[in-house]
């Protein structure tokens, strides 16, 4: 694994220079928590490192809530996103499988992916509902991103994880190769301590390999009980890093607007004749679990849940997916 390092002041200066040719988004903490903000010279110093997790899922940079998918686009400035948690990097892999398949690739998604440099950030510490490790996802990236950044007592350390990332870091003269084994050991110790925190916090959650079977075999009573407080608001799907269902809306001139949609909304599967397999709230509620833990794994080979915990945080009915799983695994 290749590491580069520089002083925090040098990194901040480099970012200021990069602002001339990139749009940079980075996670920043404010009074409401932590989320991505557009970076300007004035807020570079406020960028937050090593802390979980921005409120907005990474998918929002690649799948806007609403976009015209038939009109020509003006070229956009390339982007850098800093501070992506590894759970979101895992989620993006599933989005890539979906939107970059050989037969039907989405040229708008693809253009954004090609024009974006991903800099993830190791999570040192956890939030209340973080449970990535229970899905065998580490709280730090070792692949599928371009770089991973760590701020260690005023030193910025970058793990190089792709050729694109290597080419990029080579343009920053102050980024020196990190040979000091002790620093790497400190990082690894921090990573391990986050994993220990996750293991303790995720105690009682089932083995991720068994989640599909548990969901498939779950009795109706479970869905009835947990959907009782669901109001079909769709917050869980909107904020989920892997939910990508959408609707095409027609506009004059045979233009189409693609708008994010969700199986939690009534009428999602209704056909013109009136049949609707997901008419009942309980069925829509179950559908989300079946999709994430049974059908997507059957189709793509991986769960469509990354353990980010955002659906739990966002639920206005206080429905806790992890409580459901603990009950299922009893």
């Amino acid at each position, binding site marked *: 694994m290749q590491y580069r390092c520089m002083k925090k002041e040098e990194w901040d200066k480099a970012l200021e220079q990069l602002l001339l040719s990139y749009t940079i988004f980075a996670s920043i903490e404010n009074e409401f928590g932590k989320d991505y903000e557009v970076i300007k010279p004035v807020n570079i110093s406020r960028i937050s490192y090593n802390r979980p997790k921005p409120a907005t899922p990474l998918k929002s940079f690649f799948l806007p809530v609403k976009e015209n*998918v038939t009109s020509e686009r003006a070229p956009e400035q390339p982007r850098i996103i800093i501070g992506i948690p590894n759970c979101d990097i895992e989620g993006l892999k599933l989005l890539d499988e979906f939107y970059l398949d050989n037969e*039907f*690739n989405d040229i708008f998604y693809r253009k954004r992916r090609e024009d974006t440099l991903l800099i993830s950030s190791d999570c040192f510490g956890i939030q209340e509902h973080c449970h990535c490790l229970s899905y065998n996802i580490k709280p730090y990236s070792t692949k599928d991103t371009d770089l991973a950044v760590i701020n260690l007592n005023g030193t910025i350390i970058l793990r190089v994880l792709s050729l694109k990332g290597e080419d990029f870091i080579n343009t920053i003269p102050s980024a020196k190769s990190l040979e000091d084994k002790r620093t790497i050991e400190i990082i690894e110790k921090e990573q391990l301590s986050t994993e220990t925190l996750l293991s303790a916090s995720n105690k009682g959650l089932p083995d991720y390999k068994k989640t599909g079977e548990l969901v498939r075999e779950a009795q109706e009573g479970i869905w009835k009980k947990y959907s009782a407080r669901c109001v079909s608001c769709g917050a869980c799907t909107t904020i989920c890093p892997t939910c*990508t269902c959408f609707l*095409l809306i*027609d506009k004059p001139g*045979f233009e189409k607007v693609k708008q994010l949609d969700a199986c939690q909304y009534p009428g*999602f599967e209704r056909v013109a*004749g009136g049949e609707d397999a997901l008419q009942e709230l309980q069925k829509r509620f179950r559908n989300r679990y079946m999709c994430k833990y049974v059908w997507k794994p059957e189709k793509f080979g991986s769960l469509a849940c990354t353990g980010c915990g955002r659906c739990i945080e966002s639920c206005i009915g206080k429905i806790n997916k992890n409580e459901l799983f603990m009950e299922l695994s009893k």
Partner: protein
Amino acid sequence: MLNDKNIYKPIRAKLTNIIDESPLIKTFVLVPEEEFSFKTGQFIELSVDGIGEAPFTPSSSPLLTKKIEVTVMRTGYVTEYMHMLKQGVYMGIRGPFGRGYPIESFYDKEVLILGGGCGFAPIRSLLYNLKAISDKLRKVTLCYGSKTPEDCIYKPYISELRQTPKFEVFRSVDKADGNWNERVGVVTILLDDVKVDIKNSIAVVCGPPVMMKFGTRKLLSMGYPEHDIYLSMEKNMSCGLGKCGHCMMGKFFVCRDGPVFTYDEIKDQPDIWN
């Protein structure tokens, strides 16, 4: 290497003729402005400019390349607008999408087709295709049901089919009038009339969900193996690309993995008849 085609962009097609098939059903004859072809059983997304689009399986022969016919029942928002369209306007076409009928696997067999209502539309396309290769088939039997004699579509085509060697047609209506001299009752009663060598036969079912359900049950009870019953499934296919999620039927995207499935492929998936 991924291609640069915009998967969401329709091609324009001129509406050159509109045929009234029944009080609720019209056939639209379209001439696409760009090259367009499909395999029988595949579907397209047909749009009314600025209003919306909906999935339809073309009812014309897949062997015709200059024009395409789509038979539409007035049943919802988009189809309401379609029925108001006048000759000469342009519609939008995306596709073709999905997996059609595996015609080659029908060779040397009898083909038993069970259709209901507007489900005759995809079947007519299939029948055109089967006629073109009839030297490779043993026999084609069509059992078609509709609500009333007035609702029976493709009347001239039925007459033509009845004159075609190797093809036979049985029809039923739920409610007859004085001029009806064929069967009365649900379409599955026609299966009692047909003589079919099940071992050397495959069955195709297309129609409203309730008809598909009872049709499939009857075919199974007649002895058809699950893998020899081909169903053309109806779900809310919105994007046609296996991405938007509206037509998920268990692990399958009906738009991409179907719409034609054998019964054994989907029997364990939830809500297949809804």
